[in-house]
């Protein structure tokens, strides 16, 4: 018989099969799904992030941990929904128009899913109006914009302007990232946050959710 505590270890070690087995057992014995998330899963992903920050974990470890987390979440989500428990937040993510690069965007999306967020991935080369449509009617959404190129990063400002024009800027938090992006650029275009890696992106998303 597994202990729920093993879920923490399974996620930290990126063991998706173990995470699935422990979660199944826990749910079968009427464990509280909300508690599984708050006591074991989120702390595990927090620890993954810390290890990444101090160069103990690298991108492969981030991804297998996020995958293990996602596996467990898929089992837990229906029960959470039945009990009316909400996800950590809703994030619409995409690479801005004119940019086909998805490396950073995919890493951030995986980590956010692993962090308990509902992630709507619009893909690459996303026009501003598509970002706007994805957050309209979804108060409190986070919009995560990615760009790899200096030529396309300016499109982030266009997206923010489109949010303003559509009247949804005040109800949407905007976070940005990508190789050429800096905090200074984020401040200049009026984004709510900037992250330079997938790990800190999750912490930033949590911070933005708590500030809404």
């Amino acid at each position, binding site marked *: 018989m597994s202990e729920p505590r093993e879920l923490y270890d399974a996620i930290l070690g990126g063991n998706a099969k173990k995470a699935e087995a422990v979660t199944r057992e826990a749910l079968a014995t009427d464990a509280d799904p909300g508690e599984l998330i708050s006591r074991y899963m989120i702390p595990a992903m927090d620890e993954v992030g810390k290890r990444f920050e101090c160069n103990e974990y*690298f991108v*492969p470890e981030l991804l297998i941990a996020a995958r293990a987390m996602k596996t467990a979440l898929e089992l837990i989500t229906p029960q959470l929904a039945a009990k009316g428990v909400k996800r950590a937040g809703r994030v619409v993510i995409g690479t801005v*128009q004119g940019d086909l690069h998805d*490396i950073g965007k995919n890493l951030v999306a995986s980590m956010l899913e692993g962090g308990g967020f509902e992630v709507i991935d619009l893909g690459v080369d996303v026009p501003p109006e598509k970002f706007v449509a994805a957050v309209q009617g979804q108060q409190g959404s986070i919009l995560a914009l990615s760009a790899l190129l200096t030529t396309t990063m300016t499109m982030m400002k266009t997206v923010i302007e489109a949010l303003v024009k559509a009247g949804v800027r005040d109800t949407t938090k905007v976070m940005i990232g990508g190789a050429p992006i*800096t905090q200074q650029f984020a401040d200049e275009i009026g984004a709510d946050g900037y992250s330079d890696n997938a790990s800190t992106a999750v912490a930033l998303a949590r911070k933005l959710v708590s500030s809404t």
Partner: protein
Amino acid sequence: MKIPFTPVIYEHAAQFVGRTPWEVSRDPELMFEGHRRAYLEYHQQVIAVAIDIYNLEAEAYGAKVAASTPDAIPAIHQPLLSSLEEGIALKPFDPQRDGRIAMMLAVAQRLKREFPEADVRLPVGGPFSIAFNLRGINDLCLDAALRPEVLAKMLMRLAENQAVLCRAVAQAGLDVAFFESAAAPPILSPKQFHEIEMPALRRVLEIASECVGHPVPCISGGNTYPVLDDILSTGTNYLACNVETNQAAFVERVCRTHPHVKIRVNLDPGVVACHDPQRIYRAIDHVLEITAGRTNCVMGTGAMPLETPPSNMRLIREYLAD
């Protein structure tokens, strides 16, 4: 000049013919003219003939390259390989038939005829950079964590397959501009780099060196200081020192242990392209401080953004000449 300066020109060449990177990457006349004019302007140490260097081998293997908007840099969006086993079974492409390799070789030869004094090279990708496009970053990183031995095998296959390209480059009377941009931390850990990447990296550099008759530069992206000993162990004679790494420690280590190895200490391409001279000067001063007059160091850039004003290069040169 306080230190030799050499920019890295790929997509930036498109600016010199006023066409998009996509157009220039597919048209031999535009590619020739773009690189010709760029060289006349910059006289950089190496003419590396390409626009989208990361796509060449993957496209030759059959991956589809696309550009969404006119000024976008062409990229591969759909991974070609659904498993590592497919990668292990990959046969070498034919440089004379597949993708744009033959076109690139012809343009490079033409540039060599135009500028006999120039060091004209064709980009040759490292195994991880090729695998990155063939498998996609997420799958490749999962492979590194879950099936490292099989991934190492696939990388070795890709390394061996590069022999046809290196031979074609040598037979065309050209040289190799080798790059391996994605394998260093934070993508792979130093341990993963050593165990998964190094055997294939060492092999492909051996192959390239044999083909051209001398050691070839090893231009690696990312935070390379933690894997510097591994990279130096390949016998390369030229390294790039990126802004993503501890440049001071990198230069100090190479100069102490391998003083014959040349180092291109890069400025941040974002700074090189900016419109703030003071910011550029600060970046130059930083590199000058790190290199401290060492004769095996040159100042460079990462791949210069398309929109970089050529006047910034003049500004850098003038500042270095003062």
